[in-house]
């Protein structure tokens, strides 16, 4: 209370009525400056927006016309002075690169050669190279992307060196670019990769590979024995997707790997590249496995198994876990034409819940 009285007193001791005018003036000045700054900012943004719009229109007209031309003279005729004027500013040059990439993503065939011709003719490669040489990771990654999208094959070796970059994004962009340039041969970067390939990255690489004609993956055995576990995982997926039967033995070796995810993928891959003894290999593996992997073995036996696997699968109906019983029942029903009778008999003899069979029958009807 004493402190409050004292502060009120001292406050009003220093503040005079004349100070109110000064404060009002200062407040007005600050408000005016803020409005002015806001107005200037909006004006600049508006100008930039309209300039970009004009630039985009000019570029769209130019690219649109270029894509349907066939001769060099016709191509040059369509590069207007207005477009060249716009392209003096870096921001407009970036817009031009973005539009060319947009075209590349949507149009294919002969027209793409014209897009690349325009990129080179307008010297936009210099801008991409500047980004590629930058020390800032996102600029470098963007530079790689632009060079690859504009098919600058002379940069292949330099980009290849970045496939083992310590930055995840640069590495990923470089690997995608190398595959874009060289297809399956580009996978050679897996030989020297020391960093991990994330799940997302593996999906992107497989997607990129899907646009190329498949070749014999002769380095696959080497990748399946790599010390980099993510390379082994990716190699297993390659063997699976492209059904590389010749690596059956190497994939079988992966079942000994201490990493459960690798063993799980190896089981799926073995099922895709199955030979006569594959079901027996999976059966031998069963007892050494964890729960999720056991389930996967039973699922894959449902696909590749035969009558010969029925005794093994019947044993699994005595497992304590209901999910294992369920998977084993599904597998029996698929492996044998009279699977239902076999399961019914087992249920009667071994006192197994009949609901397991009912569930599988319901799934089949559905």
């Amino acid at each position, binding site marked *: 209370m004493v402190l409050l009285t004292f502060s009120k007193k001292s406050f009003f001791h220093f503040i005079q009525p004349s100070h109110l005018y000064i404060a009002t003036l200062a407040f007005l000045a600050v408000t005016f400056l803020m409005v002015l700054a806001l107005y200037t900012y909006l004006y600049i943004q508006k100008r930039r927006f309209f300039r970009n719009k004009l630039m*985009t229109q000019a*570029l*769209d*007209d130019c*690219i*649109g*016309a270029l*894509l*349907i031309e066939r001769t060099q003279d016709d191509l040059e005729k369509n590069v207007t002075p207005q477009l060249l004027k716009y392209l003096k500013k870096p921001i407009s040059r970036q817009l031009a690169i973005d*539009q060319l990439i*947009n*075209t*590349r*993503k*949507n*149009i*294919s*065939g*002969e*027209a793409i050669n014209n897009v690349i011709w325009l990129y080179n003719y307008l010297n936009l490669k210099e801008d991409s190279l500047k980004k590629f040489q930058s020390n800032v990771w996102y600029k470098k990654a963007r530079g790689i992307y632009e060079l690859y999208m504009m098919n600058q094959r002379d940069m292949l070796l330099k980009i290849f060196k970045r496939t083992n970059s310590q930055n995840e994004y640069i590495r990923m962009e470089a690997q995608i670019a190398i595959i874009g340039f060289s297809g399956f041969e580009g996978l050679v970067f897996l030989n020297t990769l020391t960093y991990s390939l994330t799940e997302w990255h593996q999906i992107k690489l497989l997607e990129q590979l899907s646009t190329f004609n498949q070749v014999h993956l002769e380095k696959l055995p080497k990748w399946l024995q790599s010390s980099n576990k993510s390379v082994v995982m990716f190699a297993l997926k390659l063997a699976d997707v492209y059904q590389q039967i010749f690596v059956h033995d190497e994939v079988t070796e992966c079942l000994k790997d201490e990493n459960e995810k690798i063993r799980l993928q190896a089981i799926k891959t073995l099922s895709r590249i199955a030979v006569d003894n594959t079901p027996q290999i999976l059966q031998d593996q069963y007892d050494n496995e964890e729960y999720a992997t056991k389930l996967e073995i039973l699922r894959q036996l449902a696909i590749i198994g035969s009558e010969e696997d029925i005794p093994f699968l019947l044993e699994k109906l005595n497992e304590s876990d209901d999910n294992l019983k369920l998977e084993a029942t599904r597998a029996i029903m698929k492996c044998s034409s009279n699977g239902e009778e076999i399961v019914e008999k087992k249920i009667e003899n071994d006192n197994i819940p009949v609901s397991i069979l009912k569930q599988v029958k319901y799934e089949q009807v559905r």
Partner: protein
Amino acid sequence: MVKILLVEDNILIQKTVQLKLKKEGFEVICCNDGKDGLEKLSSELPDVVLTDMMLPYVSGLEIVSAVKTIKEKEIKVIVFSTMGQENIIEEAFKLGADDYVTKPFSLTELTIRIRKQLK
């Protein structure tokens, strides 16, 4: 002259396809969104409709369905799709689409497909 209605929100693609088709001797009417596309469809009654699947305001599927309700003339529909849109393409065919092209597509291929539909 064969009249084509092109509904595509990517202006660059729209212009490119328009120029190519004009060069091939077609009359091309362009729309940037689905709403405009539906309006032009009933007012212009084109011979062929080329439509993207992902459009502002009204989807490509709605355009396909609207085309097939027109009784005045038989209008062919070719849809543009992107990789991984198989389920949308399937839906478009159920609604009556006649053909499709997947982006990135070749302009020559598109012209061939249009001509095939016109036969």
